[in-house]
């Protein structure tokens, strides 16, 4: 493979260079990426294909009656969730990274947990608590003798604001995790220089740490926003008329899958624009560090009241995202725990572990391959490829699942047809209706999550390290193994954790693509919840959180030990 390396903007010029000028290694890499991309984009290509044959032109109706308000609602939802997750995720990550305060080590992993909560369950819990008929308002009415809603004002949880609140406190961990990993890897030198030059600690955060973490923060926020776009459960329960609702009504109420696919495709363009704008705004700034000199960050001790304030600030998101809703669920667990604990539930636990573990390992491996490919061959094609790989996340879940099952079944049927014709044997469905289909769907869906985390990790590693390693005779593969992988540990850990937890709670694709008699915790919860028996689903819902906790604990150490401080420069003397 070529050693010519991304030393600057001139590398981009290489795109135009013609294919035959590339080395065999480069060609091979790019071909493999094309193949990979073809698989990852299968569902989206199927959706685009479906959108070519709508049952009827949906646009006159949608423009006249739906889109103006649905677009406004969706943008409002995305802006709200984007802002809150950014502030909460970044703020808590900075506190945990830079300061020592009571309970710091505990909140570090507590802060990740809300991610394990399916949003529609949280929406249900908050309605139980804050609705007019809910515990809080009923209590207030009893206390003050109010007769009806006209006697007092109370924020309406069944609203777009309610949805912003609910989704923000489930999704902020995306920002928290990537911000934390980013802050951890920032060179202390940069921060110290800033201090020497007269910045206050707030000034360092604002002027140095924050801009340096920007790619990571944006990656985190983007994930939250895509989740806003594709969510159906929570928005439906809270009565928000988002674009995704319009996709489903077009498909199911009007039997127009083609039309629904058109709308979903347009939403994708929306996402592409969003990414492009962010990229353009970022311009040609570079975010990796120019020095390999790291020391453990000297925590600033926050004593007394300030320490406790930090504790409260970092506990609050956890309380809102997990603890408060869990009160509702725990009530159910205590009442129905025993009756709902059976062999079927244990099978669900195993199935959840299985598909989430597989999806996480596949998604992270592919993300590593793509991101490193982009690093070694930093051309336009590779940049677009890594970006495209993540688009599965912005598509409403069931639509993505339909988009995947169509090409999978077509593949199976054509092999079957060939085998029947040539050998008279039927091979039936090889991939459709197997765990493979589910895992593939999850990996495709959450590629954005893993690519984002892995890329952010690569961004922070100075290309000087690559150059040095290559000068010293390492190949691109051995550089990856000996130099990058150890440094990427926190990023890979975060990526695996995110995909695992997301896959655990993923519902629509798992539901539709699974084999016979195959339940995961998420489908188990859904089966009960869709019968309006949320309470009986409590135990399974809590199990999702508890199992989400396992990898959090497992990988937390990997993430937190991500300060490549102290030992690293002794191990790699040549790099300094």
């Amino acid at each position: 493979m070529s050693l010519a390396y991304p030393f600057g903007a001139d590398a981009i010029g290489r795109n135009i260079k013609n294919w035959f000028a590339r080395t065999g290694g480069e060609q091979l890499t790019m071909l493999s990426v094309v193949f990979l991309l073809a698989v990852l984009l299968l569902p989206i290509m199927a959706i685009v294909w479906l959108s070519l044959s709508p049952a009827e032109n949906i646009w006159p109706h949608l423009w006249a009656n739906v889109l103006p308000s649905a677009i406004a609602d969706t943008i409002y939802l995305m802006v709200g969730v984007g802002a809150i997750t950014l502030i909460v995720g970044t703020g808590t990550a900075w506190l945990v990274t830079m300061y020592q305060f009571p309970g710091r080590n505990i909140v570090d992993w507590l802060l990740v947990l809300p991610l394990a909560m399916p949003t529609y369950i949280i929406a249900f819990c908050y309605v139980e608590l804050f609705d007019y008929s809910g515990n809080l308002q009923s209590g207030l009415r009893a206390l003050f003798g109010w007769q009806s809603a006209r006697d007092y004002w109370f924020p309406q949880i069944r609203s777009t604001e309610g949805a912003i609140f609910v989704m923000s406190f489930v999704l902020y961990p995306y920002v928290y995790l990537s911000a934390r990993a980013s802050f951890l890897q920032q060179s202390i030198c940069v921060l110290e220089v800033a201090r020497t030059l007269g910045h206050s600690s707030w000034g360092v955060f604002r002027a140095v740490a924050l801009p340096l973490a920007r790619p990571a923060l944006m990656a985190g926020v983007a994930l939250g926003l895509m989740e806003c776009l594709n969510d159906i459960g929570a928005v439906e329960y809270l009565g928000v008329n988002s674009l995704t609702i319009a996709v489903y009504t077009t498909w199911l109420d009007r039997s127009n899958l083609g039309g629904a696919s058109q709308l979903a495709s347009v939403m994708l363009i929306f996402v592409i624009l969003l990414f492009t704008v962010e990229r353009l705004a970022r311009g040609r700034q570079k975010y990796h560090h120019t020095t390999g000199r790291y020391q453990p960050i000297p925590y600033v001790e926050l004593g007394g009241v300030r320490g406790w304030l930090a504790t409260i600030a970092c506990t609050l998101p956890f309380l809102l995202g997990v603890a408060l809703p869990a009160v509702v669920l725990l009530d159910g667990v205590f009442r129905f725990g025993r009756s709902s604990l059976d062999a079927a539930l244990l099978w669900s636990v195993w199935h959840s572990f299985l598909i989430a573990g597989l999806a996480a390992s596949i998604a992270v491996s592919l993300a590593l391959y793509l991101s490193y490919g982009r690093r070694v061959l930093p051309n336009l094609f590779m940049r677009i490829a890594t970006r495209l790989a993540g688009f599965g996340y912005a598509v409403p879940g069931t639509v993505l699942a339909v988009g995947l099952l169509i090409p999978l079944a077509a593949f199976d049927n054509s092999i079957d047809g060939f085998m029947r014709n040539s050998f008279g044997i039927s091979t039936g469905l090889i991939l459709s209706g197997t765990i493979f289909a589910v895992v593939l769907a999850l990996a495709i869906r959450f590629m954005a999550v893993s690519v984002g985390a892995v890329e952010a990790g690569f961004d922070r590693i100075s290309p000087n390290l690559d150059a040095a390693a290559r000068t010293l005779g390492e190949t691109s593969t051995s550089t990856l193994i000996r130099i990058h992988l150890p440094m990427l540990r926190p990023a890979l850990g975060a990526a695996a954790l995110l995909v695992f937890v997301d896959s655990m709670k993923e519902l629509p694709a798992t539901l539709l693509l699974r084999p016979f008699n195959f339940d995961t915790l998420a489908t188990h919860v859904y089966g009960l919840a869709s019968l309006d028996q949320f309470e009986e689903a409590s135990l399974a819902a809590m199990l999702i959180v508890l199992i989400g906790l396992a990898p959090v604990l497992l990988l937390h150490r990997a993430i937190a030990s991500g300060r490549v401080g102290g030992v690293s420069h002794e191990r790699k003397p040549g790099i300094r």
Partner: protein
Amino acid sequence: MRGVELFFRKVKTAIAAIMFVTVMSGAAGAAGEVNIYSYRQPYLIEPLLNEFTKSTGIKVNIIFAKKGLIERMAAEGLNSPADVLLTTDIGRLTGAKAKGITGAVSGTEISKLIPAAYRDTEGHWFGLTRRARVVFASRDRVTENEISYEDLADTKWRGRICIRSGHHVYNIAMIASMIAHHGEAKTVKWLEGVKANLARKPSGNDRAQVKGVYSGECDLAIGNTYYMAKMMLNDKKPEQKKWAASVKMLFPNSGSRGSHVNISGMALAKHAPHRDNAIKLMTFLAGDKAQKIYASVNHEYPVRDNIKVSGLVAGWGKLKADPLSLNKLAGLRKRASEIVDQVGFNDGPGS
């Protein structure tokens, strides 16, 4: 990192296990099985299927999902493992037929058992239960003991009605029945009137609407009858008994054309690999024993008139069902859904 390595080692074992399971499940084409794709929750049909397995020895495999199973069957085509499709809502039954994934069942006992009004003329789908969409009225605050769907637009109910999303299949079918009886223009006006009478934005599920009446947020709730039974008998969550006790059930239009009913039903898969077993299952579901279970366990109305409803259901009074053709109803769903958008029903009152 050791923990991580251990984790990956376990994953490797798991992969091997999957390969094995996958191969095995692929091979499971042996006799004595029947495969169901179900839009209905397994919990609801479990007692029925257990009974079926007990009496025939045929093992039942099931996949449940609320969206997309018809598309999955269509994609799997010739090789689809599905034998029987179970679903609620007439729209999905006619939709399955239109997609060409159903097979015709004729000359069997099934068509003798199920009344003509509740099955496809060519045998592509059969109704199993009827579900009436009714009004739950506050016992304290509503004096009326009769109501019609048309009345729901009356200004006297301003700010007093709770209902789930207008796009939900149950509501779409109800609105489609209004189009069938009154035409589009009148239905638009009617739905605008209902929207103006809403107490809150349409959201939540059917039970949540009754809870709204209980807590005083609204006086009328729209819902399906069997939810009433589920609340009344909810020993696990006794507060739901209080919700149920706070309302009386009014069968709309019982003095005129009758209350709107939708059905749940079944269809034979076109490429059913276990066709004989599928027919056996369908015959069983249409038979006395299964119909009684539907009535006594799920508290739905059996499609067959000669099967008694449960005592609880009988206590609510006699259901007079709107005789509107189900095929006609299904054909109007699209317009109903568009009208929901057109009047901005889901934006709630005062928008």
